[in-house]
């Protein structure tokens, strides 16, 4: 009979408390999760709404408008799109091979102790605030590039428009320097994601390749790299997303020139840096709405790249293999 009374007790007050507690905790955590979903939706809605005035004025042709004239009330995004494309290309051309090489060094070559130290240092590079990196870019890297790199390139490769310095430009504030700074930000992202990928490649496969007489490099090329292709793609896209959206450091080093010129050593502007550079001095509502239009373009590109990386990760179960 003792057991029955215990059951009675279990169904008493404690049980009720537990039922309420369960519901409460579920409600609380569900509400927080809902808030996260709502925030993302609200961000998109708010930015598109704030861009409305500019959208109704210029429509889709805003994308290929080349002027940004507050007095004439004409705004266009093409120079910013151009600047974003150029700086991101420079960043990815530098950062993709570097990041991959670092990941290979960490996962295949370095002994364990070196791996931990160098790995932490590379991730520390990602922790450097972008405004500090931009400060270094504008006061140290820019002048250095102008004094040593640009003059030399202009003299020897100046016949290629890409490397020609224009009148009144010395290259200290330029698309090129912005690309370098972005590369510094992208390298740790690519390196740390790819390192996890490479570590998760089954050891049996790698050892099989070595046993067949492959050199380490042949093993990396034939097994490690080729079996993590999808993941590498996702890592590069995530790195690109970082480069696309960086505003502060780029605004510091790019020199705010709203033009489309063939040379890498010209000043320029990206979507993100234009928003930062213009917002403080905005004078008309249309100008503000146009800045939000730029933000909306950036948001669409940003969400798209992010989703693409997510799809690759899910589809190929990039991390599933690691766990």
């Amino acid at each position, binding site marked *: 009979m003792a057991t029955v009374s215990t059951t009675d007790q279990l169904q008493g007050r404690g049980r009720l408390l*537990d*039922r309420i*507690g369960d519901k409460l*905790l579920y409600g*609380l*955590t*569900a*509400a927080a*999760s809902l808030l*996260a*979903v709502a*925030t993302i939706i*609200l*961000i998109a809605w*708010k*930015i598109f709404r*704030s861009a409305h005035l500019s959208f109704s004025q210029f429509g889709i042709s805003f994308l290929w408008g080349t002027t940004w004239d507050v007095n004439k009330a004409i705004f266009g995004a093409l120079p910013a799109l151009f600047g974003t494309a150029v700086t991101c290309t420079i960043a990815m051309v530098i950062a993709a091979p*570097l990041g991959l*090489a*670092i990941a290979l*060094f*960490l996962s295949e*070559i370095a002994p364990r102790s070196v791996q*931990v130290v160098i790995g*932490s*240092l*590379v*991730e*520390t*590079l990602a*922790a*450097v*605030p972008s*405004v*500090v*990196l*931009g*400060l*270094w870019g504008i*006061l140290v890297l820019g002048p250095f590039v102008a004094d040593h790199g640009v003059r030399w390139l202009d003299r020897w490769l100046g016949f290629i428009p890409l490397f020609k310095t224009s009148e009144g430009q010395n290259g200290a504030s330029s698309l090129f320097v912005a690309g370098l700074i972005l590369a*510094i930000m992208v*390298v740790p992202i690519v*390196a740390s994601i790819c390192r996890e990928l490479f570590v998760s490649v089954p050891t049996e496969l790698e050892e099989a390749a070595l046993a067949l007489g492959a050199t*380490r*490099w042949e093993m*990396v090329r034939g097994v490690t790299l080729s079996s993590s292709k999808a993941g590498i793609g996702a890592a590069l896209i*995530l790195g690109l*997303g970082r480069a696309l959206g960086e505003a*502060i450091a780029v605004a510091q080093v790019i020199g705010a020139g709203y033009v489309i010129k063939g040379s890498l050593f010209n000043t320029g502007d990206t979507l*993100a840096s234009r*928003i930062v550079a213009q917002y*403080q001095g905005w004078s008309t509502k249309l100008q503000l709405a146009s800045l*939000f239009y730029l933000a909306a373009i*950036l*948001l669409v590109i*940003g*969400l798209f790249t992010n*989703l693409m*990386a*997510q799809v690759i990760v899910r589809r190929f179960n990039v991390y599933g293999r690691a766990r």
Partner: protein
Amino acid sequence: MAAVEPTITLRGDGHTRRRKIANRLAEAMATLAAVLAVAVLAVVVLAVAKRGASELSWTFLTSDLPVPFTPGGGIAPLIVGSAILVGIATLIALPLGVCIAVFLEEFASGWLRPPVQLAVDLMTGLPSVIIGVFIFSLLVYGHAQSAVAGSIGLAIVMLPLITRSTQEVLRLVPSAQREGAYALGASRWRTVVGIILPSSLGGILTGTVLAIARAAGETAPLLFATGIFGSALGFNPFHALPNMPVQIFIWSESGDPEDQKRAWATALVLLVFVLIASLAGRIALLASRRKLGR
């Protein structure tokens, strides 16, 4: 039939040598890349340390902001303002982030999980300037700048980081603990609050420290929300507060060499804080992973 003559020599021929050279070359390049990344980090940190240290002094750390175009002044309001901004952001992001992680790992069923997880993932990749203009249009435009608005922006930066790291530690909690609690008749909320969260507390705190390190250096969300401020020490979060990232940004664009010196010194203070926080977080992360047998 004569005995089979060995036609393949075991000595390396040109082909083998080429393969070996390619291998050496690839290894050297990979090592070089790692050295280069570390060198860049060293160059940046040393540049900030060298230029910042000469300006840094006790007076500089404890005085009000300089009046424009005069020498002297300090950055006490910036340090206090940054602390308040990041503090409020942490108060917002930590409970929300932990709740979302608990929902995703312990409660969410079937169709509820993917949209929430997607929202968190998208939030991770959101450019911070987008968060900045969002806060501007939601809370600042038509009202006034305030530190709270800036903190909410920073909280949006921190939230997915805290959620992510909490999710990871929740997954590491041995299922035996969970099942043990259920087997003893503990209800769900008692299991979560009494067993699961305490045993993953270390990991959650580590993730929070890393998120703080990240938020302390974020400039874009603050530029739009608390970018115009006075030079005196302020504590009221409903006004715009001076803060380190925005002031470094403003000084770095200034042509005045005095301002540039101040920018370096402020950058040094910020960098030291961020690097210590992120290194501490990372070391704790490695230690806890090793303990939990990952």
